């Protein structure tokens, strides 16, 4: 059962993606650790960390594509799940500091000593153990998403209203985490990390390891997303996206499907956040900013909604551009991002990957029918009058 489930995940596009990822996971750390510094093939540590950060963004984008691209749930609050995963990891990293903090307290993080807290709050217990923190990385976003989704989907909140309440969710968390008495470092968040699993967090080898871990997590989640979206459940998700009430009349309990995919997606976002924090060295309430979640949606739209690899590509490309812009022309980045979104919406509604694969299909069909007409005995693989038809073509159409 499990093998056939995973086997479904594979096709040519998935193969290319996995090959590229495998190469990156091996070559980037090798280029940093094994190639001497003077060589043109040396990958500097800052670049390893930067690319590692892009991979965690890519994983976040993948999670958004799963719910938005396949089930039509436009989440404008996924940064909340990302940040919660990040905080769970940050708490572990804080507790690893031990007596090396400014105040040298063996248990309490510096900010708690500073606030004169006598002891560790109960919800910080267990975070000195990696396995516990790792569990919380998926459990906390997962449980929050489950509870939120339970109420939202059962009450049949959809479309713009759902998007708005996801924004409200992340905004509420932003305000909560800003407060010092929440016990998460307030405004400053969690930072000054020393080591992770006993490895110096600044060391090149740790950086390379974190990059590889981000790559592996991305591959793992991608395979899960593929297997899910290509299963019969995935077909139900697309049915819900395109004609929700029709799906209900077929006997599918739409809210259960949404809840499943929503919770799964939130857990993936949590993993992304947990890998992000040790690489950037800080987590603060700014990660809950509503604009962050909106940015993720732009990445997915640019890369191609409902294509999975498009989400990854969009996240990497847009963030690469962001890095470049904020260094070269810091003032115009937001305009560039807004402009990009407008251009993509108007001219590339299927995003980069969607447009590309549509063109590819049309080309192949044209060639096939040309061969057919030329008397080759290979018939066209599918009818030639369907060039614009991809799985993402149809407008969402509500049942009457």
């Amino acid at each position: 059962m499990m093998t056939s489930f995973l086997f479904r995940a594979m096709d040519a596009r998935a193969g290319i993606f996995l090959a590229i990822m495998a190469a990156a996971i091996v070559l980037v750390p090798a280029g940093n650790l094994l190639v001497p510094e003077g060589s043109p093939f040396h990958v500097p540590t800052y670049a390893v960390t930067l690319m590692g950060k892009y991979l965690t963004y890519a994983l976040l984008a993948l999670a958004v594509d799963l719910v938005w691209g396949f089930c039509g749930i436009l989440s404008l609050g996924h940064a909340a799940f990302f940040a919660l995963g990040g905080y769970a990891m940050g708490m572990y990293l804080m507790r690893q500091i031990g007596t090396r903090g400014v105040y040298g307290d063996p248990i309490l993080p510096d900010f708690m000593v500073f606030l004169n807290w006598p002891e560790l709050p109960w919800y910080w217990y267990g975070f000195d153990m990696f396995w516990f923190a790792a569990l919380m990385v998926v459990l906390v976003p997962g449980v929050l998403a489950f509870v939120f989704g339970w109420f939202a989907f059962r009450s049949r909140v959809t479309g713009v209203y759902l998007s708005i309440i996801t924004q409200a969710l992340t905004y509420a968390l932003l305000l909560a985490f800003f407060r010092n008495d929440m016990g998460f470092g307030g405004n400053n968040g969690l930072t000054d990390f020393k080591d992770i699993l006993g490895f110096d967090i600044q060391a090149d080898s740790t950086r390379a390891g974190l990059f590889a871990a981000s790559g592996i997590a991305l591959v793992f989640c991608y395979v899960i997303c593929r297997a899910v979206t290509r299963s019969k459940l995935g077909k139900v998700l697309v049915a819900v996206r395109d004609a929700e009430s029709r799906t209900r009349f077929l006997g599918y309990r739409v809210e259960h499907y949404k809840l499943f995919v929503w919770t799964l997606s939130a857990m993936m976002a949590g993993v992304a956040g947990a890998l992000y924090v040790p690489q950037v060295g800080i987590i603060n309430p700014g990660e809950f900013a509503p604009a962050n979640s909106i940015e993720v949606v732009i990445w997915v739209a640019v890369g191609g909604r409902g294509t999975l690899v498009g989400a990854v590509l969009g996240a990497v490309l847009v963030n690469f551009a962001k890095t470049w812009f904020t260094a070269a022309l810091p003032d115009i980045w937001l305009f560039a991002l807004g402009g990009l979104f407008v251009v993509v919406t108007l001219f590339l509604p299927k995003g980069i990957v969607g447009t590309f694969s549509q063109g590819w299909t049309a080309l192949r069909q044209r060639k096939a029918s040309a061969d057919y007409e030329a008397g080759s005995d290979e018939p066209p693989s599918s009818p030639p009058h369907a060039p614009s038809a991809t799985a993402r073509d149809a407008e969402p159409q509500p049942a009457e």
Partner: protein
Amino acid sequence: MTRATSLLYLDGVSVSFDGFKALNELSLTIAPGEMRAIIGPNGAGKTTMMDVITGKTRPDSGDVFFNGAVDLTGEDEASIAELGIGRKFQKPTVFESHTVWDNLELALKAPRGPFATLFHTITGAEKTRIEDLLDLIRLNDKRDELAANLSHGQKQWLEIGMLLAQDPKLLLVDEPAAGMTDAETAETAELLKDIANDHSVVVVEHDMVFVRSLGVKVTVLHEGSVLAEGSLDHVSADERVVEVYLGR
């Protein structure tokens, strides 16, 4: 007929939208195995009646029972579908970005939970069933086509195929011949008569030629309640029916 022996039993059902009574004390009984045609002018409440039966609209008052015992007013769309009531919409609604085959596969009677579908692998029996349906609705050569690319009439047929795939006890078919050519309409009537051999069917239709070719008992709705009931010739002879409907 009593409630206990009926397949579908509506008694005194009323629905109002902003004070306007779309259904007004509607009572109607369908026997097991029966095929019934429902006619009536636009706005008579035919679609609203189907909405009430399938759980889309809650009645303000009245009873709706299925199989003599199940109170449908307490169930939602998914559980009513699972009980064995399938519906074809007035405006054909198929899953446009799925292929014809996938539309049928999604409709096919099978466990409906997320975990069942996540690990589902299509069985040989299911494939055979889909093949049979494809032949029946004459879309065999379109099996890999996206439903979006079908003609209007083909979408109607696909939706009928999806209805059959669910293997419901009762089929509610809303204006199946709308937008069809005369030839297609005649074929659709034949198809529905075939289906009625082993299913109970309620068909809403405007086309009198179509209704006549079904040759079944007819219920005339008007302003949300039953105006007349009987054979087509019987109701056509009814003066009130002629006045509100046929004579227009």
